């Protein structure tokens, strides 16, 4: 258990004047200076009963009904010209996680003076057990629990239930019976998932071969008639300069593991993107009534994934420039130069319904996820293989019946 460390942007060492030391990555201070750890009061009446009202995307005081919102992060950090972005810039909430930092934080209640412990691995606020004030964690402790920004839920709980119900309703016939029996969409949970939102300035080169058909002809006759092709082969090289704005990457190692044979994390990935430009400065009150998952990946851990995505984007960007190769292109080598990146840690809102499914002694959690901003739904529904087999055999028998009938008639 630790008392609050003095606020310092992230776990990175402070800059020094020593000439031999490499220059540290520039850090954007995103600490919400208006808030401290502990009691944070309604600006109008001073009550601490504050939570998000998703339908409005605003914080609301449950005592006086006053509504307000934190400033959008975009208003405090200028995007600037992404083409001029150089080096690695990191938001203070995206700084390296100090593995020695404790998840437990002790706060002194400003209402009564009692000491209240919050486990930031599980929640970002607690109620003082003596005076009932709500205490929240707002300072950027270097354990990955407080990001640079949060994107509040806009899709309500009822709306999420309806969307999940519709999604699963279309998949009832061949669904596993245990899934249907246990299906209760009202158990959907609002979760703030940790992501790194990255702006990038990059160049890429790709080299390969392409073929253009020059002649098509047939040889032989009857059953031996075959089509042949002649083609010109070209060596193809392309270069593209590009910038990306708010590329969103999972910053939880568990969620980033998208092995479809072992988990269904890909469905959570599919509901991206979010309107991250509307993310607001951190205020733990946005999390009241929701759960959150703590970031456990640093910028260095996510560089390979970023490079992979930038290369994919580059390949996508050059695709139309090789349309003339009507027999296709085989890219063989590729190069990426990342000129500059800017990383911000964000909590993004996801409504998550989960079902643990056992099959052949192997368990898997199936998710149905709803984007808490756009309402996009994606999910995995466990199937009843027996029903699926019966359905497939019925369709196959029907098709075979048509074929046999036609053959008999001809």
């Amino acid at each position, binding site marked *: 258990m630790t008392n609050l460390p003095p606020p310092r942007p992230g776990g990175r060492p402070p800059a020094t004047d020593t000439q031999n030391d490499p220059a540290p990555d520039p850090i954007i201070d995103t600490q919400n200076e208006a808030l401290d750890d502990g009691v944070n009061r309604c600006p109008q009446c001073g009550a601490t009963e504050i939570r998000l009202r998703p339908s409005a995307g605003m914080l609301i005081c449950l005592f006086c009904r006053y509504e307000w919102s934190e400033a959008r992060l975009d208003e405090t950090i200028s995007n600037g010209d992404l083409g001029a972005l150089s080096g690695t810039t990191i938001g203070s909430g995206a700084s390296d996680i100090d593995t020695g930092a404790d998840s437990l934080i002790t706060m002194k209640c400003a209402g009564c003076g009692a000491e209240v412990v919050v486990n930031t691995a599980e929640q970002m606020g607690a109620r003082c057990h003596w005076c009932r004030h709500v205490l929240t964690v707002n300072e950027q402790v270097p354990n990955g629990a407080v990001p640079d920004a949060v994107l509040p839920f806009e899709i309500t709980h009822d709306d999420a239930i309806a969307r999940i119900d519709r999604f699963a309703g279309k998949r009832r016939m061949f669904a596993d019976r245990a899934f249907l029996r246990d299906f209760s969409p009202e158990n959907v949970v609002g979760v703030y998932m940790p992501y790194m939102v990255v702006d990038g300035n990059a160049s890429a080169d790709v080299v*390969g071969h392409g073929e253009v058909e020059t002649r098509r002809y047939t040889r032989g006759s009857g059953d031996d008639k075959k089509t042949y092709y002649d083609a010109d082969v070209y060596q193809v090289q392309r*270069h593209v300069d590009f910038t990306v704005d708010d590329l969103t990457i999972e910053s939880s190692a568990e969620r980033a593991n998208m092995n479809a044979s072992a988990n269904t994390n890909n469905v959570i990935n599919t509901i991206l993107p979010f309107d991250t430009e509307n993310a607001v400065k951190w205020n733990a009150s946005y999390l009241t009534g929701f759960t959150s998952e703590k970031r456990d990946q640093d910028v260095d851990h996510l560089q390979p994934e970023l490079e992979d995505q930038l290369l994919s*984007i580059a390949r996508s960007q050059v695709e139309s420039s090789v349309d003339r190769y009507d*027999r*296709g292109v085989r890219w*063989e080598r590729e190069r990426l130069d990342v000129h500059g990146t800017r990383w911000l840690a964000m909590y993004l809102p996801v409504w998550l319904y989960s079902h643990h499914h056992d099959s052949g002694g192997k368990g898997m959690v199936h998710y149905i996820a709803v984007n808490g901003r756009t309402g996009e739904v994606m999910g995995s529904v466990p199937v009843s293989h027996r029903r699926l087999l019966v359905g497939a055999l019925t369709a*196959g028998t029907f098709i075979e019946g048509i074929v046999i009938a036609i053959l008999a008639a*001809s």
Partner: protein
Amino acid sequence: MTIAILLTDLASSTATFAAADDGSATPWLLALGPAGAGAVYFGLWRYYRNTHKSHDFERETRIAAQPATGHDAKVNEVTGTRKTRIDGENRTDHRQRVQRFD
């Protein structure tokens, strides 16, 4: 509705094929039933499990790109091939990584 259209198309093409057939295509036509069953099983399984889905970041991210530049040089000719496409085509498979170079 879609299934009805597919079945109508299947019946129509099978009838055309069968009418022009001298008997050698019959085993292929008879294989349509098992192949259809397999396709239905796989298609439904994917519809339920969505294992192939992921964020389409190449299109759904705000990207500003300069026009692609580069050069093309003819290096060879292929004659008399029966392949309809270049070997290892990956033009649209953006996520397939190839050898990195510096």
